[in-house]
């Protein structure tokens, strides 16, 4: 096996091993852990974070960061819920547009993609550092969510909309389907699409990518647009599951998704990492949260432990990188 492949293999292997050890330990510690119900439970719980984290993986691979996905999640969900519940009045034409469930879903996704696109444009055309651009968008989207909802939840969205978060298909929960399809798509995108290869090149060396004639700006805009759209998907799942759009939905989710990406072995400096790594990262966090809950560990301790896991994961990566580089 070649050097690069074996290094990547061992990075992956380490995460898998960590996950396996956790599962094993939890099987021994709790008889409620290894049940089908709990398994679905974990998958359902990680679905929202995984949707966000796939987008975050693309962004981080490109050498950037996106702090606005949690806020975009909230706004997309709120807009979809609002349009579905109340429609939108266009006084100029003296009409009230009513939305079907499908229409509301599309609108929610458009809002997510549109805000992501704005991020991309701010970062490329206006040369803002990704941290700053998405920090600004975070605040804007949070504010717009408050304006749109008036600070109150929008509830009672109907059963067909509720299917997204609570329905099942072939006895598999819908969020798990959505998450699985997205993972499959984006594993393909990053591994086999030209766009994916270009994405790694932009994150690995932007100057070289530019000199090689790659559409660096277009690639970045696409990456942030996708991250926004995926935040929209997450927003729809959250809103549907609760049957209500909460003005404060997704608070702090961007940090959870960064954590999953980092635990999954993707380098914050860009150009190194994978979507499959992020899937493992999400699973590790999901199993950890679930296990600690089953063991009646206080949520406050759960946060502390999650922090320690993040630090350990990155520290181990760094130690390996030190042996590999130079």
């Amino acid at each position: 096996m070649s050097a690069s492949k074996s290094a990547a293999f061992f990075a992956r292997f380490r995460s898998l091993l960590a996950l396996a050890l956790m599962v094993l330990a939890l099987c021994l510690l709790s008889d409620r852990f290894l049940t089908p119900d709990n398994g679905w439970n974990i998958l359902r719980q990680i679905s929202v974070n995984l949707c966000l984290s796939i987008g975050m993986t693309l962004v981080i691979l490109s050498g950037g960061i996106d702090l606005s996905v949690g806020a975009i999640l909230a706004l997309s969900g709120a807009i979809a819920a609002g349009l579905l519940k109340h429609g939108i009045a266009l006084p100029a034409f003296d009409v009230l547009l009513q939305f079907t469930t499908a229409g509301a879903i599309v609108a929610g996704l458009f809002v997510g993609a549109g805000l992501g696109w704005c991020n991309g444009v701010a970062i490329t055309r206006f040369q803002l550092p990704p941290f700053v651009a998405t920090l600004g968008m975070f605040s804007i989207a949070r504010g717009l969510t408050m304006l749109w909802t008036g600070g109150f939840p929008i509830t009672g969205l109907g059963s067909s909309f509720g299917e997204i978060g609570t329905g099942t298909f072939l006895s598999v929960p819908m969020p798990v389907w959505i998450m699985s399809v997205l993972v499959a798509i984006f594993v393909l995108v990053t591994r086999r699409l030209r766009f994916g290869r270009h994405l790694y090149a932009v994150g690995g060396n932007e100057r070289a990518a530019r000199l090689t004639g790659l559409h660096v700006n277009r690639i970045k805009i696409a990456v942030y647009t996708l991250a926004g759209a995926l935040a929209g998907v997450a927003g729809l799942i959250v809103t549907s599951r609760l049957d209500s759009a909460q003005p404060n939905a997704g608070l702090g989710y961007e940090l959870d998704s960064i954590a999953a990406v980092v635990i999954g072995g993707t380098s914050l400096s860009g150009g190194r990492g994978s979507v499959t790594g992020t899937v493992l990262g999400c699973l590790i966090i999901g199993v950890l949260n679930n296990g600690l809950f089953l063991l009646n560990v206080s949520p406050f301790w759960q946060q502390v432990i999650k922090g320690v896991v993040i630090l350990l994961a990155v520290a181990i990566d760094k130690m390996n990188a030190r042996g590999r580089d130079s």
Partner: protein
Amino acid sequence: MPTASDIVLEAAGIEKSFPGVRALDGVALRVRAGRLVALLGENGAGKSTLMNILSGVYPPDAGTIRLDGREVRFANPREAQALGIGIVHQELNLVRYLSVAENIFLGREPLTVTGLIDYRKLHADTAAVLKRLDLAVAPGTLVADLRVGQQQVVEIARAVSAEARVLILDEPTSSLSAHEVEVLFGVIAELKSRGVAIIYITHKFEELARVCDDVTIMRDGRVVGEALLTELTRDAIVRQMAGREAKEVFQKSPAVLGSEILRADEITLPGEGAGRPFLVEKVSLSLRRGEVLGVFGLVGAGRTELLETLFGLHPERSTGRVSVNGQAVNFTSPRDAIAAGLALAPEDRKRDGLVLPMSVAANASLASLDRTLRGGLVSESREAAYITPYIERFRVKTPSLHQLIVNLSGGNQQKVILAKWLATSPKILLLDEPTRGIDVNAKREIYAFIDELARAGLGLVVVSSELPEILALSDRVMVLCEGRKTAEFSRADATPERVLHAALPDLAAIVS
């Protein structure tokens, strides 16, 4: 003959491995007080690794380092520094947005009694060091505002000011102007007379006679020869470095010129911010199929900027007319230039040419990924099939296509860049310092490739600051000085004196 008691630094049995590479395999090196030992060897021979070990960047796997006969171990560069080992790395290690003075004394700033930085003393000390190195900049100048050559001098000033007893210089002259080189040689002579031991890595043979006493030659992680310089001929050195009989002179084949393929009129690139108003000023050039146009100039002459402008990197600021194959073009990005058949191999491979976290294959196919798709998807097998002929054509030495590019030597990295561009079937190749930091043998290979590509009908523009290289390769030589074109010679007329004359600022001013 120097005696054993002169030995300041002695390394013995040094071994170091990186994953997949045995970089050093039992290396011994002795450095004597007041003498300069030149460390020669191809890229990948292990010179830089050895220097990194001697200066505490990383520990050896095995072996001992003795300083004044006592065994020492360095946990980090700071400990090596404290024991009097100074190093000027090949790559610049300066903090761009600190001043010259702050950089030179970084980590050893003079303090006042209250514990604050004593800027008066800092600047006075800096001024004294700069005077020694004849660098006319104020101590408070930001490093970012200096030319690359000047930054290199600052780097040297940092090592010199530390009053090291052992000074390691890793290709210190690669970006220096002729004058700066002279000053450096003067400082080296002075340091030697004060008993400083110097290790000097270089690829430029002409420098040896000026500064060198002893020669140590490395190959494949071992020392293969040690001698006084006076006992060695150039041929003998090249032979030992290469490990085989090396043909000394590159034989250029006669040019068969075709139609004009590239024409540029009055290319102008204004400067940004302070400094010269024009980086490139009204430079015109013409290139025919099968021709190698050499562009010579000292650092800061605008060579790189000229190539970048031709390649569409400065569409907003630059002016001038360019035509390819007789058709006027207006490149707004490198993409346009590539579509028109241009390719640029940049001067700084790591910064501009390579995607370091990627494999050899991914780097080589990056510019031509469209041609390796199957059903719209990247196919690794098709990619390998497409790229392998180019990798083989340029004789890239790599264990596999999946090897990370960062693990290859400089010469092989450069060959991958050439392979990458050739895979796009370009018509015009712009090569910026194609042999910078590359060993003698890889250099000769690159020269042969350039020759071969010209014979195949490509037009090539080769930028270099090495005069022998320009003279050996070019059918025509264009000379730049401070952004302006000061002369153009046919191959027959291009003598070293004439070309150099046109490249030197003060002389050029008199001529024009």
